[in-house]
């Protein structure tokens, strides 16, 4: 039989199946995907470049806006790096406040993802239900930090706001709501026939591939890799409590590494986060939440600092990694952000291969991509027609030089 000709489908950067701009190019034969390529860089804002022109207190706010969904993770990772370089001792209570907010962020992010995943399957009822449930976490975050998005609570040396005793009942109320909802969510997401049909054995990433492609977070755990920064290299208050990586075998019998397993991992991480918040609140110490209240002193300490450090945080999507180098100046000499989607995105090439066109949205969404986290560097491939020619590159380079001279 003569092989059928392949044809080309571009998806993105603006497409209803994508929540964020990214360009996919698929080689399709019949209904089957034979080749995958993608071009990120559509949300590149040059945050690292800007950060190297600002001081650490200002960068904390820039970090919040790397990604509106996992704002705390980025700020926490950056603050940890700076605190290590400048040898700032963060008060015990601040660690607990940071961890509790980070766990609430995980709850809202996973529920957000669950809703988006249901939407990608065409199951809009479930999408609306998941987002209604998510509002409870948003309310608590707003109650505790003052903002629904971009909380701005973490800063170098501690946290900006403390929890008061009269705020605790509201937190417990939210935890009880989620504990009551767990059974319902599991039934809706994991026992539904439509979801089982669409997600089981779809977009499979084997354990070996997950390891070789250096995936992180729920994507790696769904394939059976027991990695979790909270357990492997505890930070903030996670050293004081028991955290174990959640693998799909908490619900299913076998680990397959398909889309369904990724749903299992994320849903049971929500359950685990509720348990973690309870543990943290039980042990919460008293005391100050800031190493130093005067910004001038924080800045002076950072200015004197010399050295390099990394901050690693388990964001809802996986490991979030910040590298900072300070060299006795107001601004960092170097700042590198490696967000979790950066590690996870290469698995797309593997899991999309051989699947059908109709499964593209859910498989793309299954690693919970966050392009605004990822687009630190524009990807430019030379020699590929239509992407960027030598003249374009030269033109860009000249333009940039001019801008920098101004």
């Amino acid at each position, binding site marked *: 039989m003569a092989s059928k000709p392949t044809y080309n489908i571009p998806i993105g950067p603006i497409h209803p199946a994508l929540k964020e701009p990214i360009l996919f190019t698929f080689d399709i034969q019949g209904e089957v995907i034979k080749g995958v390529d993608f071009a990120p860089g559509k949300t590149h804002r040059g945050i690292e470049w800007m950060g190297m022109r600002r001081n650490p207190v200002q960068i904390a706010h820039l970090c919040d806006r790397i990604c509106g969904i996992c704002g705390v993770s980025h700020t926490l990772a950056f603050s940890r790096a700076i605190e290590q370089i400048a040898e700032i001792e963060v008060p015990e209570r601040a660690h607990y406040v940071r961890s509790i907010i980070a766990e609430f962020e995980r709850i809202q992010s996973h529920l957000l993802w669950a809703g988006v995943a249901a939407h990608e399957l065409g199951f809009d009822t479930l999408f609306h239900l998941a987002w209604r449930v998510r*509002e409870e976490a948003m309310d608590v975050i707003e109650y505790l930090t003052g903002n629904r*998005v971009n909380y701005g609570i973490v800063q170098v040396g501690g946290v900006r706001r403390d929890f008061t005793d009269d705020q605790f009942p509201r937190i417990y109320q939210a935890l009880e709501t989620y504990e009551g909802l767990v059974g319902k969510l599991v039934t809706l997401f994991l026992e539904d026939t439509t979801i089982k049909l669409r997600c089981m054995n779809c977009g499979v990433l084997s354990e070996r591939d997950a390891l070789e492609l250096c995936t992180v977070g729920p994507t790696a755990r769904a394939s059976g890799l027991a990695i979790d920064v909270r357990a492997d290299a505890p930070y903030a208050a996670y050293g004081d409590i028991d955290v174990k990586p959640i693998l799909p075998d908490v619900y299913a019998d076998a680990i397959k590494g398909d889309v369904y397993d990724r749903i299992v991992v994320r849903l049971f991480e929500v359950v685990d986060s509720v348990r973690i918040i309870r543990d943290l609140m039980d042990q919460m110490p008293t005391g100050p939440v800031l190493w130093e209240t005067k910004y001038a002193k924080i800045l002076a300490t950072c200015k004197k600092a010399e050295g390099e450090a990394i901050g690693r945080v388990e964001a809802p999507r996986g490991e979030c990694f910040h590298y900072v180098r300070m060299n006795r100046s107001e601004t960092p000499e170097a700042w590198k952000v490696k967000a979790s989607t950066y590690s996870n995105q290469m698995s797309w090439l593997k899991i999309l291969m051989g699947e059908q066109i109709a499964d593209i949205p859910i498989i793309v969404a299954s690693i919970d991509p966050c392009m605004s986290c990822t687009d630190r560097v524009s990807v430019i491939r030379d020699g590929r027609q239509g992407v960027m020619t030598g003249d374009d590159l030269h033109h860009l380079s000249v333009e940039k030089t001019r801008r*920098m001279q101004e």
Partner: protein
Amino acid sequence: MRLSPSFNRSLWVFHFNSGSCNGCDIEIVAALTPRYDPERFGIKLVGSPRHADVLLVTGPVVHDMADRLRRVYAQMPNPKVVMCIGSCGQSGGVFYDSYNLDGPVGDVIPVDIYVPGCAPRPEAIIDGVVKAIVLLESLEEKQ
């Protein structure tokens, strides 16, 4: 605003992410979900700019997306209203000194309604959409 007799058309919105941090984007979706439920007024997100009355733009318009924003704007049928959601679309916000911005949004396409905030609350976004309805009504009368 004469909502009751002239609410003859439901408002369909198209969402364009021009390089935002996702903060405004999740608030737009949060504004459409059951807590606020504007779908009872027929307001919903659509997948194509050719079906849309209102264009919601988030983000500071990075270089790669500027041309795409112009093309999406050109594809929308008249009368149309453009809403710019979030501080970074108005002035660049925290990204004001970035080398990769072609924005703010107002420099790329004409904007009718600005919703400030980083990120604006869903209530603020809905308030902006209500103002868009009034504007659309007056645009229709002129036609």
